[in-house]
């Protein structure tokens, strides 16, 4: 049995010893260095580019512009709309314009500083409210990217029959993924003439296809390898350095390395969507929710990235994990000239959790009900109908997570003034929203008698390599971990889809189970289970050519109705409850998260340490989201003015693992990556209210916002 065991991660030793090769470690002295020249304007026409001084610099090999792109100069995870290199117009500060290739990093960077660009500024569309009214169009089709609705029952009638109605507005800001490793990669042409790129990434097959389109070559002639990756959180889903590396290799015919500085990383890559949320909740005197009406307005920046995904996912999760008979959600994303908002841990759901959890606490307060009780009363459970009228047939352990927290909640005691406790709940659909998002893999043997797993899954630090091996061992009924892992390489694996949407354990885990099933049948036939050694089986098989067993899984979902979003957008959901204790210093506005209890229904914890690791990390990110992180376009440049929590800001975390097994998942497993973050900021904000009487509706509640709110409250 490997499932449920704390197997040491397969990458642990290399990381502890410092021998793991991150993308930049793959460089050598023969490689050219490439760097990007970026727009210094948020919105402008490019009138003139003068690269002569850069080209004149000794050691500069090439300066590449959009004209040097042999294929299509557009990329995008969902729709192809973002230029690799700007063509005549820039739409955000930091947009890539040129790639400068030099013999060293120093020369390339110096040369990129010598490029002169003349701009003619256009009106800077600085927020979605300006965007929706402005006559200036960021794209020809208009400034509205997406409008999704969720309509269930009759919200108007629901409010009429409510005893209490609470209506408020919430807002959040840009968050940077702030992975430890900035975007980096290397590239070269191999002996077959194929373009090879090894990079820090969350998805290899997607990037292979984008490079092929960029260079107008068949995808089979592109190989993308995932280097050891120092964090992703959604920021390495979009093409980052990969396209530029491939382009530079294509033109110079020499190996090329790239690595963003931290400043460039902040400037260049996507951010969490700032959302503005108008939220109206109705309930009966008994605490039963009657209706919810939500109006979401998002700043998606100038290109799509995952804007539509966030728009829809935020909408279908807007009610939170509760049974609400009447729902009306309008979710809209507008283009602006701010940084491109993209995927970041939770795809809009952490922002919504702030709103629905604050609302629920206010309802509870109005009717004099305990915050835990009102959550228990409305919690989704087996058989419940979600906001999209999906029946939860299987795993739905929200109540168990609430019960896991209950003893700590009931026993809570305030530690003097400034002390407070708050709850936050969430549910989260595993995998992409209402669309096919399959994973594939294949298994074979080595002639020496080991099982070989070929996996295209990108382990970005969350531990999927180990988890998939555990699943495979148990699926094959192996007693030892006699498996070789061949991973993260488009040449040797099938497309497993992105490491995102908390999907790899569930979806790729099922693909592994599917392949294992086939291999198992084969082994059965060969007498493995009646005692024939694998070595012998493989030796014999090798003579005829080793068999290959493909596995595939695509979670059953239905596309949301275009008008109402009704349907079953996810095959399964994860659930969680967090309880956070804070201490607020009312003199300084400093809020410290002191202690967190975090209960997560993960279906089945394949690897308990991995699950807990995700929970600790998610809480840390939640502390940042709630209390300090804020990217201000045009101002934030580096960690000098972007505050990320440190170990000293971390609360003590007690993780409680709830296992309501999911029959459609591998050994009952669902996912936990994003859920770990989602309810934390909400729990903190609710705790601040409990501690001070002040309700914070804008994130982050950094020391200044909190102090000003406390002062205002005093005057009242």
């Amino acid at each position, binding site marked *: 049995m490997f499932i449920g065991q704390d197997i040491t991660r397969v990458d642990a030793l290399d990381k502890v010893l410092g021998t793991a090769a991150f993308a930049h470690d793959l460089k050598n002295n023969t490689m050219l260095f490439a760097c990007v020249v970026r727009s210094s304007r948020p919105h402008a026409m490019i009138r003139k580019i003068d690269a002569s001084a850069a080209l004149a610099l000794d050691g500069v090999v090439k300066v590449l512009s959009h004209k040097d792109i042999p294929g299509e100069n557009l990329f995008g995870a969902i729709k192809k709309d973002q230029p690799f290199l700007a063509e005549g117009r820039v739409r955000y500060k930091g947009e890539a314009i040129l790639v400068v290739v030099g013999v060293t990093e120093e020369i390339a960077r110096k040369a990129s500083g010598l490029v002169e660009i003349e701009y003619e500024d256009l009106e800077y569309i600085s927020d979605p409210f300006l965007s929706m009214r402005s006559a200036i169009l960021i794209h020809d089709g208009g400034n509205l990217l997406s409008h999704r609705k969720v309509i269930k029952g009759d919200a108007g009638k629901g409010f009429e029959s409510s005893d209490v109605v609470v209506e408020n507005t919430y807002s959040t800001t840009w968050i940077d993924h702030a992975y430890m490793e900035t975007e980096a990669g290397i590239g070269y042409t191999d002996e077959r003439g194929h373009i090879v790129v090894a990079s820090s990434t969350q998805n290899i097959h997607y990037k292979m296809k984008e490079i092929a389109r960029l260079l107008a070559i068949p995808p089979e002639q592109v190989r993308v390898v995932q280097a050891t990756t120092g964090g992703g959180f959604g920021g390495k889903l979009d093409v980052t350095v990969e396209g530029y590396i491939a382009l530079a290799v294509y033109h110079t015919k020499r190996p090329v390395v790239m690595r963003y500085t931290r400043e460039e990383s902040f400037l260049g890559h996507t951010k969490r969507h700032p959302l503005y949320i108008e939220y109206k909740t109705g309930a009966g005197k008994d605490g039963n929710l009657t209706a919810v009406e939500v109006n979401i307005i998002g700043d998606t920046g100038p290109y799509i990235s995952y804007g539509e995904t966030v728009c829809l996912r935020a909408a279908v999760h807007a009610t939170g994990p509760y049974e609400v008979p009447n729902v009306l959600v309008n979710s809209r994303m507008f283009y602006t000239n701010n940084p491109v908002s993209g995927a970041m841990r939770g795809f809009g759901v952490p922002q919504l959790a702030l709103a629905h959890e604050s609302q629920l606490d206010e309802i509870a307060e109005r009717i004099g009900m305990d915050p835990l009780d009102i959550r228990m009363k409305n919690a989704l459970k087996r058989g419940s109908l979600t906001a999209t009228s999906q029946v939860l047939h299987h795993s739905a352990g929200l109540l168990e997570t609430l019960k896991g927290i209950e003893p700590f909640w009931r026993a809570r005691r305030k530690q003097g003034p400034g002390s407070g406790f708050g709850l936050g709940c969430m549910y989260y659909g595993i995998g992409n929203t209402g669309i096919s998002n399959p994973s594939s893999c294949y298994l074979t043997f080595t002639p020496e008698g080991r099982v070989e797993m070929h996996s295209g899954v990108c382990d970005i630090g969350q531990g999927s390599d180990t988890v998939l091996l555990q699943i495979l061992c148990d699926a094959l009924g192996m007693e030892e971990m006699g498996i070789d892992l061949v991973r993260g390489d488009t040449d040797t694996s099938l497309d497993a889809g992105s490491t995102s949407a908390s999907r790899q354990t569930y979806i790729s885990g099922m693909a592994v189970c599917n392949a294992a099933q086939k291999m198992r049948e084969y082994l059965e036939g060969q007498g493995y289970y009646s005692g024939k050694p694998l070595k012998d089986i493989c030796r014999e098989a090798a003579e005829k050519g080793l068999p290959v067993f493909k596995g595939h899984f695509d979670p059953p979902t239905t596309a949301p109705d275009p008008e109402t979003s009704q349907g079953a957008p996810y095959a399964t959901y994860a659930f969680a409850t967090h309880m956070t204790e804070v201490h607020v210093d009312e*003199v300084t506005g400093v809020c*410290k998260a002191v202690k967190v209890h975090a209960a997560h229904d993960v279906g089945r914890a394949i690897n308990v340490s991995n699950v807990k690791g995700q929970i600790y990390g998610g809480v840390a990110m939640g502390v940042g989201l709630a209390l300090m992180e804020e990217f201000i376009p045009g101002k934030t440049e580096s960690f000098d003015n972007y505050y990320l*929590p*440190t170990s000293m*800001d971390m609360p003590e975390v007690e993780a409680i693992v709830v296992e309501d097994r999911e029959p459609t998942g591998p050994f009952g497993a669902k996912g936990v990556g994003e859920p770990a973050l989602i309810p934390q900021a909400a729990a903190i904000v609710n705790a601040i209210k409990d501690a001070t009487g002040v309700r914070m509706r804008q994130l982050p509640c950094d020391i200044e916002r909190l102090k*000003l709110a406390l002062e205002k409250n005093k005057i009242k």
Partner: protein
Amino acid sequence: MLPKFASVIAKTREEALSWLSSLENPRIIAGGTDLMVKMRAGKQYSHVIDVAGVPELLTMTETDGRLSVGSAMTHARLSTSEPIIRNARSLALACGLVGSPQIRNMGTIGGNLANASPAADSIPPLLIHDAVLVLESKETRRRVPLEEVIVAPYVTSIDRKELLGSVEINPLRGYREGYRRVAKRATWAISRLGVAFAIKEDKGRFTDVKLAIGSCTPMPFRPKKVEDLLKGAEKNEAIITEAIRMALEEIKLISGIRPSYAYKLPVLKGILEEVLRG
């Protein structure tokens, strides 16, 4: 990336002084936690003289009741130094709150003073200890009160050819002394506000009050009028309220109204209340 520069490592004070006088465009480096940041941002210094290992700058001595602290002593050392904890508790506390363990292990008190940031944590404590800086060049040696050395934010009257050798401070004994700072996160953050205080009370009266406020005005300062008001006064809410009013007035007089004051002034008021009430 760092610009190119030449560097020398001084082994003695003497050597540092002669490098300073002979080299063109010299720049002293101690811990480098300010200087390297500037150089990475593009500042060019052709000659960098490393004084971090100069033994004369790493000693602490007591003479005539004054304490002399070597300028290359690190925040880490000062925060745990027995004589500092005993004689200048606010300084020990402030040094212990600078940056992070790494920064405290590298950063020095001399660098903190010479950099003269409005948010430098060691400055408010040094002000209440009437710090005097010993500045030396090959030809000269002068002793200048800290208040006179800092002439503007990030600007001092230390000559390029001068070495800050040591800082002399007045020990304070029998005072309730401390340092309060506010920052955007628990560690590794520049102060948004810093208050050093040393208060002596007797039978319900303030017999002596020393206050210094950092990160609020262009240079950390001592609200001397407030100190005078409190000295000898009966300790009660009325006088504390008046003292705070005066302190806030003085700040507005120095800097006018700044957007950050919407936050800082109410916080300062709260901190001063706590500090004065004790």
